């Protein structure tokens, strides 16, 4: 009892610090002489750095280059007539996110409002054409409908939500590529026309979708009791982790044709995807291995005692627990993969960074590096920050690290 009281008495700061701005400032900024010195130094340094940047943002920057090239930056040369497919992918994403939100997320109203306001405010911009406006509003509508469904039938739809995430990754590839080799309905869009943020996202999606299973297999292989499989896995993982991604991409772009029969020459995008997948799998494998090592041996024994086979033990007992533990690590890897897609610029694919370079090569926009690169930095930052935010929420929601 007294202990509790003592703890509470300590937790409350004195009233001066609690209620006055001055008290707060004194405690957090000027508590000792060296803290005061640090505050002044830090303030001076950030002022010196930020002042020219803000002055440039207000005074000198010109954003015309982005307005003119916006479509190029977003989708590259993806044909205008097929743009609806990109929108379909986005609508599906909005619906799945809405469904997931309705089922699992409670509270977080502010974030939801911000997410819903982004398309809405974009739709209200005066320069946007009316079909685009409809598509943008569609995002909110689909998200809200799915959210409502998820809220109402949260138990029944759980499995559907998980499966729709898995299917979504493959569906996106299908929708963007197309089916029909001839002209007409749903034609195949040649990969040479993919570009910008669209290509960046596709490389990420394909990378995640294929490197994840490969990574899990490699992790299992590394922990296998069979020496041949173990050593091959270890060798693969260590070699890939020891070399930079650019060398692997370079190999995929120039040497893959050498390794294949003379007639076969896969498209550059496919080769880049193979390179990214092979690279990312090695890193994912190390992440998954961490999770596998964290599972106590009793789990294997208990599964054996229940009469489960080796395969069933892995699929039903070990992997679900191991993967849950490593979700933050895996998300970190996915973020890294998203950032690494910029490296395909070295082999001549026009993803977001490379297409910015070609935009800047246009004679009328030669001097606009700052504007364009700041814009794509912002795009990358927002996506990565959002992903890491989700990862943190997931970590808490799934109780990672708590038993």
């Amino acid at each position, binding site marked *: 009892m007294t202990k509790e009281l003592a703890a509470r008495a300590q937790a409350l700061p004195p009233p001066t610090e609690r209620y006055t701005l001055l008290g707060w400032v004194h405690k*957090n*900024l000027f*508590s000792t002489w060296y*803290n005061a010195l*640090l*505050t002044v130094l*830090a*303030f001076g340094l*950030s002022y010196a750095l930020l002042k020219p940047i803000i002055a440039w943002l207000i005074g000198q920057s010109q954003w015309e280059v982005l307005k003119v090239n916006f479509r190029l930056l977003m989708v590259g040369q993806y044909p205008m007539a097929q743009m609806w497919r990109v929108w379909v992918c986005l609508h599906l994403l909005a619906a799945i996110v809405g469904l997931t939100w309705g089922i699992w997320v409670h509270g977080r109203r502010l974030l939801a409002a911000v997410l819903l306001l982004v398309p809405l405010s974009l739709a209200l911009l005066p320069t946007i054409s009316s079909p685009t406006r409809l598509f943008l509003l569609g995002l909110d509508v689909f998200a809200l409908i799915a959210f409502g469904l998820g809220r109402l039938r949260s138990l029944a739809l759980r499995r559907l939500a998980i499966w729709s995430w898995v299917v979504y990754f493959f569906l996106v590839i299908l929708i963007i590529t197309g089916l029909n080799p001839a002209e007409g309905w749903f034609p195949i869009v040649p990969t040479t026309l993919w570009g910008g943020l669209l290509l960046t996202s596709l490389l990420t999606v394909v990378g995640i979708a294929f490197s994840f299973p490969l990574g899990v297999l490699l992790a299992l292989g590394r922990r296998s*009791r*069979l*020496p*041949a*499989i173990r050593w*091959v896995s270890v060798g693969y993982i*260590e*070699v890939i*982790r*020891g*070399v*930079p*991604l*650019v*060398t692997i991409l*370079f*190999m995929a772009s*120039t*040497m893959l*044709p*050498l*390794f*294949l*029969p*003379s007639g076969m020459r896969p498209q550059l995008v496919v080769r880049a995807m193979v390179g990214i997948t092979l690279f990312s799998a090695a890193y994912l494998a190390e992440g998954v291995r961490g999770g596998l090592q964290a599972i106590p041996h009793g789990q294997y024994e208990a599964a054996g005692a229940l009469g489960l086979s080796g395969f069933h033990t892995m699929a039903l007992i070990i992997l679900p627990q191991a993967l849950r533990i490593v979700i933050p690590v895996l998300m970190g890897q996915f*973020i890294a993969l998203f*950032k*690494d897609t*910029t*490296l395909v*610029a*070295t082999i001549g694919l026009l993803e977001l*960074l490379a297409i910015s*370079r070609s935009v*800047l090569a246009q004679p009328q926009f030669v001097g606009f*590096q*700052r504007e364009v*690169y*700041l814009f*794509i*930095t912002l795009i*990358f*930052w927002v996506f*990565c*920050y959002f992903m*890491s935010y989700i990862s943190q929420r997931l970590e808490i929601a799934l109780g990672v690290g708590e038993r």
Partner: protein
Amino acid sequence: MEKSRSLRVQSSIPLWRDERFLRILGQAVFLAILAAILGYLTRNMLTNMRQQGLGLGFDFMRLTAGFDIGEHLIPYDRSSSFLRAYQVGLLNTALVGGLGIAFATILGVIFGVAQISSNFLVQQLARAYIEFLRNIPLLVLLIFLYTAVFIKLPRVKEAVMLPGSVLLTNRGVAIPWGIPTETFSLYVRILILGVFLAIAVGGLLAWYGRRTGRAPLTLLWSVLTLVGIAVVGWVALPDSPLTLDPPAVQGLRLAGGRQLSPEFMALLLGLSIYTSAFIADVVRAGIQSVSQGQVEAAKSLGLTTIQTLRMVIFPQALRVIVPPLTSQYLNLVKNSSLAVLIGYPELFHVSGTILNQSGRAVEMIALVMATYLAISLLTSALMNWYNRRVRLVER
């Protein structure tokens, strides 16, 4: 174990149900499939190369390179061999890697500690720095620094002079540099002597510490010994071993000092600050991993704050910090290959040029990959050794 023993007893089990046999069979099949795939790929490669009239082998490395490299630490011109060009690239990678690791570590430790500072402003600034850098691609940062910062500096005529006579121009950054005089070689010998003395002092103190159970400031005293000898040597010599050569603008070009190209500066700065954000998180996690109880225990033993830091927190935090720090260092070295897009002649860039000149794709890619792999394995071996040493502190 249990199972295999019982299997041996029941010899009636047929071969195709014997688990030991099945395991060996499974591995044999796995290896056979792997060998078949690799063999198929190799055969394709050889066929393709024969069709293109190419052979395998590293003899071409002796041929004349025939291209220029902007920056080289060892003598090089276009009549040098491919091998020489490769060495130039390797040394440039080593330079950027070494300097980058040093700067990234310094910045990383500063921001890592700032992140857990009790000063609100410092803490928030450190967090903003880390969150910004961690969530953008390195390549975008490098290209931004190169094309939007270093190339856009004022022209040579309007060069900006920073304090310490550092010149900023769009042709590069020039810093003051020392020119060796005739006493320089003697001074180097004095320094080598100083290093040996410092090691001796360190060893002696460590031995004293082990014998008496006290904790002498081993590192501090060795460094002080070295610095002391360096200063005494500098003063005692009749002429100073280095004369300072500040850079200056001469007409349309820079003269004097050491000139650092925009490519080098962009790469070094980009790699350093990008990696420092990751190192900062490693450092923070390491310091936070030492439990509060350790600090309280140290205080109750009567240790001062500095002693607590030096003898309790640091050794334990280091053990958590070193493994992820190693992988960050390796990342930095591997990421230096991104310089290919901003044109700094490091290993990957030079190798690409060699590849284009000689047409030997397979050999060059294999060589580059083997080099990076060797650097990685060597570094991790060194760090593992260090890690074991740090681990020994645990009793």
